């Protein structure tokens, strides 16, 4: 079955340190991968996506993600975390008929 996995329920980092939120995928065909962020009591906000081309994708708010075909991963990264980055992060894969297949989410806590 086609799926995305976020192996960590929660990630804790100190402010100013680099952060990584992990995502792996198991899909057939071309992997169209997305990252969204959800702040408390707010809708999902699009961060970035990989469709084709350069494996390093740059997105909003200083985030980037690296598509790694050999490791079937699409980890989200940021060089220097901010307290305001604390939120719930979702990885998703665009399946058939525009259906987004979502990971279970990773809660990021950035400590001051």
């Amino acid at each position, binding site marked *: 079955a086609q799926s995305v996995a976020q192996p960590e329920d929660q990630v804790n980092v100190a402010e100013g340190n680099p952060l990584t939120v992990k995502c792996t995928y198991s899909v057939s065909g071309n992997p169209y991968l997305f990252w969204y962020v959800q702040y408390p009591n707010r809708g999902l906000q699009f961060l970035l996506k990989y*469709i084709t081309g350069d494996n390093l994708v740059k997105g909003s708010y200083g985030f980037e993600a690296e598509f790694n075909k050999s490791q079937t991963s699409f980890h989200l990264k940021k060089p220097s975390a901010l307290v305001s980055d604390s939120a719930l992060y979702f990885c998703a894969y665009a399946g*058939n008929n525009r259906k*987004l297949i979502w990971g279970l989410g990773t809660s990021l806590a950035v400590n001051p």
Partner: protein
Amino acid sequence: EAGVVQSPRYKIIEKKQPVAFWCNPISGHNTLYWYLQNLGQGPELLIRYENEEAVDDSQLPKDRFSAERLKGVDSTLKIQPAELGDSAVYLCASSLGLGGLGTDTQYFGPGTRLTVL
């Protein structure tokens, strides 16, 4: 550019009552989605419209849920009657393109938090 607009933001009703949610997508977006999101989980697709046609409603509980997208713009999602288990956040999203591969970005509204007592 205005984003996806949803109303109301919050709704509290008693079980067996009807409830309706409204969504106005980003101008020019042809595809509209309704999702249900439980606390701490990813969204679950309820229905997808391309213009005014519901092209995927396989996950919509049709015994109590209904939706419409008249004129291919605004959309309404209705629950009648509501049950306790319907308490969740209902998200609306829109994307520009039609059909084909899902490479278009879906843009989400703020959601409606429904509490059924």
